[in-house]
């Protein structure tokens, strides 16, 4: 697919401020950090989870456990993805029983990734609740899944896509809206 950048939706400052707001909202809704754990979906969700946990620490002065999960082994669409997924490690080194889990991903789209993550989390234990935080919600849900914390709602059409670029693994730090090039 030939894509071109249609618009920059968030720049580095925008991402930073958005993640700060999400951290505040998480603390407001959960009334502090008690029993709170943050788990990001690899790869970019894991970095966002680290940052949100960092923000929580700045606000409340307390550490919250951070984990990362790889959902490749739970996917139902392995035949439909162009690139061959590489299995990475899931790192959840703490007990999730009776914990309030903040599940973090970069872009919420069909909801299928979140479905995989929910299935995987349930295999780790029985949390008190799972709340979903995403940097971008681009719509087009195929499953009954809704986020609890949204950085930015970006209405998109199906021939567009949203890409989150983070300094931990990309050259840039931004969120861009891409669109298929006409005639390609």
């Amino acid at each position, binding site marked *: 697919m030939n894509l071109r950048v249609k618009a920059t939706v968030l720049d580095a400052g925008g991402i930073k401020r958005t993640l700060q707001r999400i951290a505040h909202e998480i603390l407001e809704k959960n009334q502090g950090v008690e029993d709170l754990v943050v788990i990001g979906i690899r790869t970019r969700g894991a970095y966002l989870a680290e940052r949100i946990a960092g923000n929580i620490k700045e606000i409340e002065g307390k550490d919250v456990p951070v984990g990362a999960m790889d959902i490749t*082994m739970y996917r139902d669409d392995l035949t439909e993805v162009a690139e061959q997924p590489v299995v990475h*490690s899931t790192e959840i080194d703490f007990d999730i029983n009776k914990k309030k889990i903040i599940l973090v991903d970069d872009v919420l789209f069909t909801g299928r990734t979140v479905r995989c993550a929910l299935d995987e989390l349930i295999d*780790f234990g029985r949390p008190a609740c799972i709340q979903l935080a995403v940097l971008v919600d681009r719509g087009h849900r195929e499953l009954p899944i809704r986020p609890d914390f949204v950085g930015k709602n970006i209405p998109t059409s199906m021939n567009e896509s949203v890409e989150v670029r983070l300094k931990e693994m990309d050259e840039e730090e931004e969120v861009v809206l891409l669109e298929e090039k006409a005639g390609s």
Partner: protein
Amino acid sequence: MNKKSELKWTRKHLLGIEELSAEEIRLILDGVSGFKEVLGRPIPKVPALRGRTIVNLFCEPSTRTRSSFELAAKRLSADTLNVTASSSSFVKGETLKDTARNIEAMNIDMIVMRHSCPGAPHFLSRFIKTSIVNAGDGPHEHPTQALLDVYTIKEKLGRIEGLNVSIIGDIAHSRVARSNIWALTKLGAKVTVCGPKTLMPAGIEKMGVKVTYDITEAVKGADVLNVLRIQRERQKRAFFPSIREYVRCFGITAELLRKYAKKEVVIMHPGPINRGVELSQDVADGEYSVILDQVTNGVAVRMAVLFLLNQVRTTEVE
């Protein structure tokens, strides 16, 4: 974040290490830690191969490898079926090809096979549409054993390239030795083989290894000693005068290690061990023995292999 290999896995079968490139070997190894983590979970099972059926076709005795493959398949949620030679139609005279085609007609997805004839899985792969994993073909290859050995070495020592690995024992009859030599040399290790002359195949140097008949030379400077099982069942043909003499010349003992080995040498054995023969009791259970890690890693490595082969298969079907 370290960039993982960009290479795509395209093989439908895993028949041997010989035909794999170094990149393909690394691609398999890169995925293993993810599967190993699954084994430590409260519910050590993922739905990756749900709905797939894997047949273990074992025409030679095996406990470890068969259980390891069966467990790997079950941890990935595949259904498994065990067919063993003694209780199957082989005893009624059915050919391997017919047996395999009949199994395939039952709509299965993968065959994991062990056979006493070198090349048996390669032969079957020409007639069969399902994926085949070689779980040992006579003295030829045992690819998943080599992969788990290499993974274990990497886990313990952090690298493969530049390491000195000595493989000791019955090199001639050993598929483990052959697959290990391919894997290690492709990944840049220096391999030495050591054993009685009667158990050393002619021309083994052509595989890029150093040959020695002196155990002290094999132990000196080695980072890893991979000690093979003396196949007592083959002793009827008298490849060496007696077990006692073998122990004296090639047995790995604590004293030998103290005198000649590097301080942190890694001791490996593919199992089953003849205690007091190729390995003394205290070495087999000693602090540098990683023999049980090899068994644990075996399940994770086999999960990684089944997962990769299944992806290729799924792409083909669609």
